[in-house]
């Protein structure tokens, strides 16, 4: 690993001024240090943002709950505000079973982590479609887009997207902007492009989650119950009137280069009661457009079951 300069600012303004060409944000380091060791990233300077007070904390902010960028996964899962309103986020965070990673990894870092595609991590690029198609692809996308056949590694992304959350970003010019999570993730179309809508000189400062009013849940399918990225997940948020669904939001995780919204399944649930049958049909609709690779057709079934179980969990119906 090449050496780099280390900066430890205490304000966002100072951090932004340090993010010149070749510099990169350091949060919990749980992903970045691996990228450095594998020489996938070679920054000239790391800007540690963990000592910037304004980036921490979870609080009510108008109609939103504001989650600071450097809130750790453990702080997220332990927060009373979050536990009371967003079981979906708690389930996604606790799915990362390691207390060590939850103590270090941050919420914004989870969204910004790079894909785990082994071809990317070994220096063969993120969009090497022929390597993926002809090689080992059991953990790759079943909803690939063009050359992007990797899966987004973020577990919080799908949950935040289903909850309609927004990412707040501060830029070098001192301006801030709000980007819906659904637009924060994007499938790159050229090598070198990022899989998130964030420029190298920008910082994620907050995540804003709209006030609850939904029944929400995340269901993950993992290889083991232990530490590993999920194989397929579903996060759902339901607005209900009595037992009837008035609107549904369903996002699949770890099946495509971005979290994947299941629009058809969302539509067919409106006016319905959540039962094993309606949840199963929604699961089937959610995976109808899947295009598995040579080794990962099994993920279609996992995603389908994840949708069903997430819906039943959110609605408080016992799974059968």
């Amino acid at each position, binding site marked *: 690993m*090449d050496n780099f300069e280390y900066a430890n600012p205490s304000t966002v303004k100072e951090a932004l001024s340090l993010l010149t060409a070749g510099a990169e944000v350091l949060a919990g380091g749980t992903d970045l*240090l691996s990228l450095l*060791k594998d020489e996938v990233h070679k920054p000239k300077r*790391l800007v540690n943002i*963990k000592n910037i007070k304004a980036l921490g904390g979870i609080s009510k902010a108008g109609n939103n709950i504001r989650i600071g960028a450097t809130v750790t996964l453990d702080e997220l899962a332990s927060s009373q505000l979050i536990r009371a309103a967003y079981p979906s986020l708690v389930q996604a965070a606790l799915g990362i*079973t390691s207390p060590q*990673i939850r*103590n270090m990894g941050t919420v914004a870092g989870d969204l910004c982590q790079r894909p785990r595609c082994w071809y990317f991590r070994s220096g063969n690029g993120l969009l090497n479609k022929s390597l993926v198609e002809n090689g080992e692809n059991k953990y790759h996308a079943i909803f690939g887009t063009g050359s992007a056949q990797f899966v987004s590694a973020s577990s919080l992304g799908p949950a935040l997207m289903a909850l309609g959350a927004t990412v707040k970003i501060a830029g070098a010019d001192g301006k801030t902007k709000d980007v819906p999570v659904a637009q924060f993730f994007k499938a790159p179309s050229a090598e070198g492009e990022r899989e998130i809508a964030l420029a190298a000189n920008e910082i994620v400062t907050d995540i804003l989650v709209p006030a609850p009013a939904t029944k929400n849940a995340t269901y993950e399918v993992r290889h083991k119950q232990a530490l590993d990225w999920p194989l397929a997940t579903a996060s759902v948020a339901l607005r209900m009137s009595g037992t009837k669904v008035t609107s549904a939001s369903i996002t699949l995780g770890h099946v495509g280069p971005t979290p994947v919204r299941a629009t058809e399944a969302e539509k067919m649930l409106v006016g319905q009661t959540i039962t094993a049958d309606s949840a199963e049909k929604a699961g089937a609709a959610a995976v109808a457009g899947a295009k598995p690779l040579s080794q990962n057709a099994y993920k279609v079934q996992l995603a389908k079951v994840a949708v069903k179980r997430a819906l039943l969990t959110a609605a408080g119906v016992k799974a059968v």
Partner: protein
Amino acid sequence: MSAKVQVQTTINNEPVEFLCEPRQSLLECLRDIVGLTGTKEGCGDGNCGSCTVKLGDRIVTSCLVLGVEAAGESITTVEGLAHGSTLHPLQKAFLDHAALQCGICTPGFLIAADALLQKHPHPTEEQTRFWLSNNLCRCTGYDKIIRAVQAAAIEINGAAQ
């Protein structure tokens, strides 16, 4: 630009100062600069937990922390568990239950288990297994480690009510 950096920190309750490059992990600093080789390196990327230390009041994998990030912090390594020649109850329980063979994973398990017992004085087997999910052992099959941690919980905190 990347000159060495002076880091002032506290390790096992002693003030320590060391000089490192920004790219050196805390694990590397502990072992190769400070000379505390109790903490082990397995994978180097957060998967195995053998490098687990306590940073402030949180356990972390020290292979994913930069040495420079330790400035002003307080670190506990496996060397800080025993009181003089009296082993920590967890260390004693690991010996009594034969919870180690090659021993590479042991320092990480001990630090992680110590944090578990501070959070849950009487952890269930399930809590113990989940808590230790980022600590890999290739020798023991885990069972003896789980038994040792549960025995130490009783030794330290008395029988569960």
